[in-house]
């Protein structure tokens, strides 16, 4: 499921309007008091976040230097960085990484296009807003596992309807018998579920584009297409990039749909699923922990790349004025 921190694409306009609200008062004693209170108030959040993530992550780092299988606990031995070498030189690791990147690129690109169309419609529509809002929130709120089942059965040639609706397919075409169709089926479920979220983020961005500018462009004789590319999109750039960043990181962690629809069979496995399989199914806590660490590092790397490549203004995402 996607997250919603991005909500603040249009934040800085408002922030500017408000001016520097939280500016420290001249009174230094009060400022000190504020400082102390602020820290007291955020302390529980910091402590909890550290406990639930940093602590297990350090544990993963520690376990990752052992050859350690839960089913043969006595055989546990220190192997240094061997697990990392194994993972990084293994063709399976790279194949799964490739598949994961494919999921990420394709789903985010398609979601961006469809999400934008939906956002435009929602922006313009004057009737039945409640109905549209309600329906768009259903895929957003539905459990990913349920979405996976719905689409798995839809694609099933035994009980589904997709083969019957697509004229170019044999009635007994097995979507889950081969890599390409199985990956497509997984992507469909992923896209269906997360496009509404993308469209809501883009809608927020769209609301920031001034109608006056669009009207002015119209007066100047710009076509609809030109207005879209010259006025609307450039003005939404920040919102788009923030949405892409968050959805991409989310898509890179894809797990639920794969687990439900193919269980990683026929080359549909993602890097998250590989990690899960090593730790939870094979009980190989050593190599599994090494994969956990690598997965974490690759998420950071992707975040870094997107931020640098597209020059995403993280200050906006961080809600700073």
């Amino acid at each position, binding site marked *: 499921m996607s997250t919603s921190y991005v909500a603040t694409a249009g934040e800085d306009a408002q922030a500017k309007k408000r001016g520097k609200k*939280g500016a420290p008062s001249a009174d230094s004693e009060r400022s000190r008091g504020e400082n102390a*209170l*602020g820290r007291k108030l955020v302390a529980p959040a910091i402590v909890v976040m550290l406990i639930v993530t940093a602590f297990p992550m350090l*544990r993963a780092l520690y376990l990752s230097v052992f050859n350690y299988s839960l089913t043969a606990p006595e055989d546990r031995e220190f192997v240094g960085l061997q697990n990392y070498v194994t993972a990084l030189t293994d063709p399976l690791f790279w194949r799964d990484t490739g598949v994961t990147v494919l999921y990420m690129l394709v789903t985010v690109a398609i979601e961006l296009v469809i999400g934008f169309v939906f956002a435009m419609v929602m922006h313009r529509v004057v009737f039945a807003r*409640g109905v549209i809002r309600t329906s768009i929130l259903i895929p957003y709120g539905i*459990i990913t596992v349920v979405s996976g089942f719905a689409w798995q059965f839809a694609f099933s040639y035994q009980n589904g309807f997709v083969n019957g609706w697509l004229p170019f397919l044999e009635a007994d075409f097995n979507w889950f018998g081969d890599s390409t169709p199985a990956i497509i089926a997984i992507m469909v479920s992923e896209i269906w579920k997360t496009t509404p979220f993308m469209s809501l983020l883009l809608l927020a961005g769209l*609301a920031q584009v001034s109608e006056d500018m669009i009207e002015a462009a119209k007066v100047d004789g710009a076509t609809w297409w030109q207005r879209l590319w010259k006025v609307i999109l450039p003005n939404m750039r920040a919102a788009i990039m923030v949405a892409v960043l968050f959805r991409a990181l989310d898509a890179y962690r894809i797990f639920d749909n794969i687990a439900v629809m193919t269980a990683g069979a026929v080359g549909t496995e993602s890097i998250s699923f590989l990690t899960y399989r090593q730790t939870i199914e094979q009980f190989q806590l050593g190599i599994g922990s090494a994969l956990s*660490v690598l997965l974490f590092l690759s998420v950071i790397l992707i975040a870094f790349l997107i931020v640098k490549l597209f020059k995403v203004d993280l200050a906006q995402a961080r809600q700073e004025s």
Partner: protein
Amino acid sequence: MRKIGVPVGVALILVWCLLPVVWIISLSFKSQSAITNGSPGFFPASGDGAGWANYVDVIENDQFRRAILNSIGISLIATLLSVIIATLAAYAIARLEFKGKKFVLTMALAIAMFPVVSLVGPLFDMWRSIGLYDTWPGLIIPYMSFTLPLAIWTLSAFFREIPWELEQAAQVDGATSWQAFRKVIVPLAAPGVFTAAILTFFFAWNDFVFGISLTSTENARPIPAALSFFVGQDPFNRPASLLAAGAVVSTIPIIVIVLLFQRKIVAGLTSGAVKG
């Protein structure tokens, strides 16, 4: 263009969002024997209908009933804890000037991006040795890893919209920062807190990774994990129609929440940028 475009777009959105939902409902009315024999098609073929049989089976299934209870309990507690802690933090972030503010936000952002699968291995190893495996707290604690940052972000966005002048007025009247927070801001902030709670709840309700990894019985197993372990009559294939009924039941709370609070949720997701 616009005249045709918008209605077509609206139709497109409705089909997109509702078709799979209608499909899963339709599937839940196919009989289990029809599924075993193979029953392609969107709607149940004549004679393949099951009436409410699948729903009766699902509701009468102890494991599933326990899973609903687990999901509601665990998600509500995780939401409650996250929102309480996040409210304190978000207030400080939106209102107070203090060192380390950026750090908190950056940290929440980083943790929100955290691949949950990375946590599963070490957590499993830790939980099994301290007895948290397959218990409610064993899920509530890891749920905080994504519910808390989400709540902090949503809430700090909401809190920026609050008319803080009232607080200042209260402070002029002699109230301390803390009193001003409690007496003036809390009532003003309640709707935002409520919306943040809904979004957080959705997230907790959706969790699958922790649910399948850190539980092993109906003691704590939440709905998504329970669905994935459903056993039907045919040992060689998944009981599609039964699962569909289970899926519909597990989606009802979401639909009810969406119907009641759609305005607030959209506002929460877009942080007031859309005039609802």
